[in-house]
């Protein structure tokens, strides 16, 4: 009975949706950990290692992948698609955060060298994206 309930399409879909929420929370936690560690090294990783957070995220993604295959197609509303605009709204702050983290990691350096390296990173990032996705 319980086995039947667990394997029912609705239960799996609820799990699938919940795993998105848990992944979202993990990403938020990981981002905050990155910022905290950049400002005050050792504050969080002395308690929870980065590896544990990353393993939790990978595990979450892995289970998501499995459940995605089991989600019945009739449960997906094709009229509602994630908008690219939303993605852009998220990506820009993430780029800004990444730039700040890179700048912060090279704080001991000459400021112009630091900015130059940041520019190199941005160009490399853009070229990699261009080669891989365009």
């Amino acid at each position: 009975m319980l086995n039947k309930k667990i394997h029912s399409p609705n239960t799996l879909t609820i799990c699938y949706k919940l795993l998105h929420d848990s992944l979202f929370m993990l990403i938020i936690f990981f981002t905050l950990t990155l910022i905290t560690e950049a400002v005050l090294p050792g504050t969080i990783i002395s308690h929870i290692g980065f590896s544990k957070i990353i393993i939790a995220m990978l595990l979450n993604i892995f289970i998501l992948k499995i459940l995605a295959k089991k989600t019945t197609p009739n449960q997906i509303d094709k009229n509602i698609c994630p908008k690219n605009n939303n993605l852009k709204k998220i990506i820009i702050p993430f780029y800004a955060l990444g730039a700040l983290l890179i700048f912060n990691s090279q704080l001991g350096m000459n400021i112009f060298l630091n900015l130059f390296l940041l520019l190199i990173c941005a160009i490399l990032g853009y070229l990699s994206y261009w080669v891989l996705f365009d």
Partner: protein
Amino acid sequence: MSFDLTKEIKLDEKSYSQYRRWQLFFYLTGFVASLYVAYFIFFPTQEFNFSFLMLTSNKGNALNPRNFDGTLITDGNFSAKQKKYFDTSLVGSFSKIKLSFTPNKQSAKPENMHIDLRKSYRAFLYPEGEPVGFKNGTLLENNHNFYLVSDGKLRKFSNLEIIASLGFPQTVFVTINNITELNYNLLGEEITDPKNYPADTIFKIANFYYQLNSAGLLNKFISTTAFHSQYDEKLAITKDPNFLKNYSITDNPIGFADGTLISYGTSVFIVSKNKIYPVGDPDIFINQGYAWNDIITVSGDEFSLYAKEKLFTLTSIHPDGTIFFTPDSARWYQIKNGQKHELPSEKIANSWLQKNPILVSAKSLAILGGCELQKEFFGNYSCLIPLNDQEDTAGKYYEFTFTTKDNLKIDNLNVLYEKNMTIPNLKLALRTMILKIKARYGIQTNSQ
């Protein structure tokens, strides 16, 4: 406007409300978990464990349970009526320490066993040895009598003519008003020879410094900075290079004074005898009581004089030559051969000191707190030692001592440092964090 990351996945009404309930539960759990993370960041705990059943698990986290003579106890057998020790070293202020003993089932029970705590620098808790007198080479004057400390002994100049003919300027003799200060160096032979210099006389020849040894040979100081780490400039008698024809120079140059801090490249080292101890990191440097402005930058030649020892960490003992000063009792102590020796006066201390001593409270020699073990669930015996969490005193070494009534066989020993969840502690944690951030980004703080 509901928060749903997967709007494209449809659910029937019943399942959707079920999902919303679970979603709420997930986010509430996440919120509680984040509060928990914040709790152990602001109110950290630190645990030390020593298992006598599985010794390999104790690496890097040892409590060093030991006998009075320092021999490590590894079998868990604590013999009766003998003083035993264990210790921890850690940074931070804590509200209490929980001590837990797990006795073996066949062992007597440690109920009501009293444990005392002292907190200081490890070397400062060394047993006290004989007081030390003035440093070799020091020139002293008392009641118109003039002395040189030579080979550890106080040697009197038989008359003023000898002082003049040897070239010691009378102005450099340190006046000693209290004759008892001279009692800490044994009295040696009088200096009567106006031509030959006594051992430990210091010379300056062509901008190089030399010290005469007891074999009548000259030891050259490796550099001017090395000389100044040991003696004041005015103690050296200036001679012309022809003076060197009368003496042989040994192959063993004199380096920096014991306890001197030197930097080479990006590392800092503590000098002791012919060894140097690399300091682990800036936090260890500060928490072991050193001052940044005492660091002397050295050249490759000066650096190559020393053999590198293992890393100086928070658990390391200050090496020989380290001088401690207790501002509350105005006393100086020098560390040597596993003992601390008092330098009985400021003038004696100054003859050894060319840098800041390490400050420590004399009160740290006394018992800071204690507790008696009481039975807990699961056969453990534990007790709490309260600490003042608003005061982080110098010295991060916690030494626990106890004497058992009966022979004990202990399986496990555990020490847990905890911080109470109070507003002053939260403020202190936030203040410490802000100071650390400021230090990291080079923001200067106005001292009050």
